[in-house]
């Protein structure tokens, strides 16, 4: 049980780190658009580069 005296403070360090990361990312605007970004992350179809198809005649 002695290991807990070391592990619990380490857990606290992690909490502080994660809290800091969270605040940093919110302030950077990463959570400003909850609807759009949530959707984009789940759609593999739309994340890649547009695939060239036969009727793609743009230059």
């Amino acid at each position, binding site marked *: *049980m002695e290991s*807990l*005296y070391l592990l*619990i*403070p380490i*857990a*606290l360090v992690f*909490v502080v780190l*994660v*809290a800091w990361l*969270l*605040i940093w990312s*919110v*302030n950077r*605007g990463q*959570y*400003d*658009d*909850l*609807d*759009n970004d949530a*959707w*984009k992350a789940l*759609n593999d*179809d*739309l994340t890649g580069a*547009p*695939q*060239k*198809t036969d*009727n*793609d*005649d*743009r230059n």
Partner: protein
Amino acid sequence: MSVSLDETQCFHCGDTLPDSGFFTAEVDGVAQRVCCAGCAAVATLIDRAAMTAFYRQRSDYPPRPDAALNDDAIAQCYDEPSWLATFAEGEAGCRQIPLMVTGMSCAACAWIIERFLNDIPGVQSVHTQLTLGKVVISLAPDAPPSRAVSVLQDLGYGVQPWRADARMQHMHAENRRDLRRIGIAFLGMMQVGMFSIALHAGSLQGIDADLKQLLRLVSMPLTLFVLVYSARGFFESAWQHMKKGVLIMDTSVSLALLLATTASVASTLRGGGETYFDSVTMFIFFLLLARYIEKRLRDRDLIQLVQLADQLPEFVMTLRDTQWQRVPRHTIEKGDTVRVLTGEAIAFDACVTSGCSSVNEQVFTGEALPRGVHPGERVYAGTINEGAGLELTVERRFVDSRLAALAGDVEQARGDKPVHMKLVDQFAGRFIGLILASASATCLYWLVADPTRALWSTIAVLVVACPCALSLATPAALASGNAWLLRHGVRVRSESGLLAAAAADHAIFDKTGTLTETQLIIDAVVTNDNITVQQALNYAASLQRFSHHPAARSFHDLAADASLRDVEVVTASGVEGWDNRTGDRLRLGSESFCRDIAASMPVKPDDSHYWIALVSDRHWLAWIALSEALRDGAASVIENLKAQSMNLEIMSGDTEARVRAIARTLDMPFSAALQPDDKLRALQERQQEGHTVLAVGDGLNDAPLMGAADVSIAVAGAAALAQAQADFVIEDGRIESILTLRRAAMATQRITRQNLFWAAGYNLTGVPLAAMGLVPPWIAAIGMSASSLLVVLNALRLRRLAP
């Protein structure tokens, strides 16, 4: 997620395909039906760019492209440096162009916009914010912004500059602050919760005393940080109200938080007694989350209001140095001459100097057909020019216009709206007094009877009486009910609207556009003896084919094979043509226009329809009556609401005879020819009689009424100002959704009552037991968490309501 189309809908915009024929566009090698050339062009553009994944992924339809908005001259204006400087921001080596893009309906729209813009040379990055309808483009300094603007226009979206607005900035900052607070509360809850599982397990099977103390010592700073960082809002609002001598829900929340934390800190430092760190963090997290969900609904409302001011065209044609130029609207002064093209909105209150046209004033009057205007007459900001081009002299700028005045009235009416959430706060005021009294009584009793038990019995009372469940009861049920409605075609704009919707016992309906379709139908035909109804309609349809007047649309489905020549549309009057067979001149249109060539024609049969005359040289041929068709389902909605013993009435700005016709069909009382403020006054009378009033409308003229009503519903396609006032917006004009809404409201009310009953019951039975010293503090803590959880879970049952 993707939308499902049936055969009568446009593949691109989802509108119903016109009966007169459809266009086709090839998408992924399949010819798809689209409603207009604009949609065909956009669909082809998307197909060419190999971005057809858009059509599979979208969850809502993009806007139907409006040819009037797609104007390269407008795009060119964005290259004008002095004007661009009014809203663009510069950073070293790149310019940020913020644009408001109207019509971004789902995330797929945002995706396609980003992809198209990123392909433009000079575009460094694109950032879209779907909720706000905002797109920020970072451009190389030498790249012209007009390319990006014209690409957006080609895709069918409306583009306007995004101007910083104080309210929006405040909302933005608040959103980030709330997210930080919720995030921190969540982390605290999880971490402290983990420690307390160890503590609870420890109290059952034994735990090393030093370890127990360590777990409490680490939980304490975490909880204190969450309390100071995340729960700050409760303390601030409680303090603000305390200074005014008002006790609200936040007061009891703050008190409970402070007491539970103080007691826990005291036990930790003393090394004995109970701690409630886990309950405190959990309570903070759930309460913040429930309030955040409510707030996001309110924010959407604000976004609508802010966008409203920008509904008028940003650029207007004006005469500068003897040349017509497109200039930004805000540079126009009183006395300037502007030109308004067909289909454009008028941006000022102005006087017509040349041109004859018809102007749709439905926003003010609720009347479906446009008013003819001639030189010397006045037109108003916010109305639409439907006829020919007009030249106007500006009399009042937008800020002084009739539209702006109406918007001001609406804001004021909104302030008078009865607030239903306040009831909970009133309740809280009494409740908190009761708790304090019983806690003091308990303390006094035990000090006399057994001083060693005084402290813990008092704390047990306060913990048991903690109104956590009570304060979550209403918000949790509302959040759940609102989420259910959103999935069933009703957009929710205010969090407390559901409570009022359940309580409503009086409903006021607007007529035009709400109970009726905006499209008129041919109702009756009165002819002279020499012509059959069929012939009259054939002539009328053949003439109307040339007209774009809204009334003409009613004729477009009829057979039109009379052979005519030299057909001419006379704006604001009617249509004239020559019959090839008889050589007669024919006229169709307003009474005065027709009487010019057939002085002997009879007067129109009644006032309850829109009558159109058909005459040939010297002879009257027919009167054709147009009337408004009831919306599908309107009759069953009315019948159903009557069965729920609601009082119903129609309030319309239209003429009495026409309103009477509709009111008779639906068997409802009515009042007609009302101005917006008449409607408002009538509403306030009903409210003073003690009714809870539901208002259903669509027009700008309904906006003050809807703002002040206890609860209001806007039919989709309604004027933006009306939508912004409404608590609910019905999608797709499906008026039956009113019944869905009402059922959801009833269910929510039921759940709220169960929650309140449970929460109050728990507190009322718990407090006496705790006061007698029968409840150990750890049971009190579990009871507190369990009762909150039960309330939240009960609210979640609403999601399973049958549609």
